[in-house]
């Protein structure tokens, strides 16, 4: 219900925003950070291993760590003695509006950079490349998307997977029943309780869900990737100066090998909450992204 409260608030300020003057050339975000000495970071609550709460309710993860690196660079660049960071949890549904209305300055989680979203928000250099695949019980006999015909399949509402799955269902007349769960945790619960035979999502997040499962060895990630997607951090559109600063910081992390070290920490080593190792080898797409950082969307 949180997202509705936020939206209600936006609708209330609509009138006010309509008469606001056009944005000045200088970076409003940087000015705000300088003036208030605070930066608000958007994070996810259960996007393992990108951005999530550990068992002490601390935000951790691959994207979050990169974001904290960026914050350090911003602090150095603005020559601030002290920069407070405020953490704000966001969901797939409210993250874009929270960036737009200024509640959040930058969000690094598991947000796909695509053309539709680019109309509303800005994206930084790509921090991760994923493929959309399936998770199923090992003994369920699901090998690829063709095996899903006529079955109940779950995905998370508001994701690219949901869109692809519905489109596939329509185009290929597969007669799947698509369940849209409100977050990844609930989608996995739907899979785990047998309501759905498979869960379609970004492969890295699927490995993340396995890391939370009661018995990790029961589950497999399978299928031909239906799309490649580039995750980026979101920031406000039309703030090139701020984006330049963040991009430079991320590029530095990637070309210097720091990002690869962070990758190894979250994808090749045991991670909280259960100390499971995702064992996700650095893909060719990721290697390319680290070698030549860019902010291109795949679709």
């Amino acid at each position, binding site marked *: 219900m949180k997202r509705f409260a936020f939206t209600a608030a936006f609708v209330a300020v609509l009138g006010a925003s309509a008469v606001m003057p056009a944005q000045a050339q200088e970076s409003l975000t940087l000015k705000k950070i300088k003036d208030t000495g605070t930066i608000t970071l958007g994070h996810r609550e259960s996007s393992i291993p990108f951005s999530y709460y550990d068992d002490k309710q601390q935000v951790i993860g691959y994207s979050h760590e990169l974001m904290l690196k960026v914050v350090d660079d911003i602090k150095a660049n603005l020559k601030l003695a002290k920069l407070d960071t405020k953490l704000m949890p966001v969901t797939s549904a409210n993250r874009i509006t929270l960036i737009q209305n200024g509640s959040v300055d930058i969000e690094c989680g598991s947000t796909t950079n695509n053309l539709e979203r680019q109309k509303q928000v800005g994206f930084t250099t790509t921090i991760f490349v994923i493929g959309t695949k399936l998770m199923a019980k090992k003994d369920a006999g699901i090998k690829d998307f063709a095996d899903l015909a006529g079955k*109940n399949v779950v995905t998370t509402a508001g994701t690219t997977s949901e*869109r692809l799955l519905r489109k596939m269902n329509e185009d290929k007349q597969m007669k799947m029943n698509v369940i849209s769960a*409100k977050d990844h945790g609930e989608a996995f619960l*739907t899979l785990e309780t047998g309501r759905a035979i498979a869960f379609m999502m970004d492969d890295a997040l699927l490995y993340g869900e396995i890391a939370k499962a009661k018995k990790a060895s029961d589950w497999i990630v399978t299928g031909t990737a239906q799309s490649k997607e580039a995750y980026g951090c979101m920031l406000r559109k039309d703030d090139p100066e701020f984006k330049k600063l963040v991009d430079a910081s991320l590029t530095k992390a990637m070309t210097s090998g720091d990002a690869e070290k962070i990758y190894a920490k979250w994808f090749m080593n045991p991670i909280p909450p259960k100390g499971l190792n995702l064992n996700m080898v650095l893909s060719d797409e990721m290697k390319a992204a680290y070698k030549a950082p860019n902010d291109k969307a795949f679709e």
Partner: protein
Amino acid sequence: MGYQWNWGIFLSPSASGDDTYLGWMFAGFKMTIALSLTAWMLALMLGALVGVLRTVPNKTLAGIATAYVELFRNVPLLVQLFIWYFVLPELLPTSIGDAYKQSHPVMQQFLASMICLGLFTSARVAEQVRAGINSLPKGQKNAGLALGFTLPQTYRHVMLPMAFRLVVPPLTSEFLNIFKNSAVCSTIGLLELAAQGRQLVDYTAQPYESFIAVTLAYVAINVTVMTLMHKFERRIAVPGYIGGK
């Protein structure tokens, strides 16, 4: 703040290509109406029964009715919904539970939502009905009994016809509430109005247009309900009582 308005979004074809976004909204609208009306019928029937039981002289029956009301009134709606949807199927025998869970997901979501909303609202309806019965002068019951009616007959022919008419205005509020509460069911994936609005945001990144449309749709539903109930209220009003002529 750099927002790009686009009201034309409703007429553009939806992401899955089978409909327009307006079609999605309309599908959600129909789902909200279907869910709320079925849940309301359940709530009225159960609520009337439980409300009457709360006023009967039999202590056991009254006690059961009170427990029912307190249970469904005091547990948050969202928690009740999760219990109906996620927990209950796990308590069934494994074979039945599995068969149920593999049935069509919309059917499961609708059933859980309808039962949840219906029972939650029935507890509130029961309280209104009880209040209506208790507000009647004691003499009416005694008069009925003195005329040789049995207790059930007194309820049926003397007290309930009066009590139900008196509680129409508060019941209207509950009727309006059930439409609004139905938005909670979007949390289990039922694609009703609020969920379709949220979906539209996810797919088009146009939150203002979609939530304004959702707001207008709820207002339209509730204005219609209010108008109809007001007409109904006037038609059945008891002369000499509140609202009567």
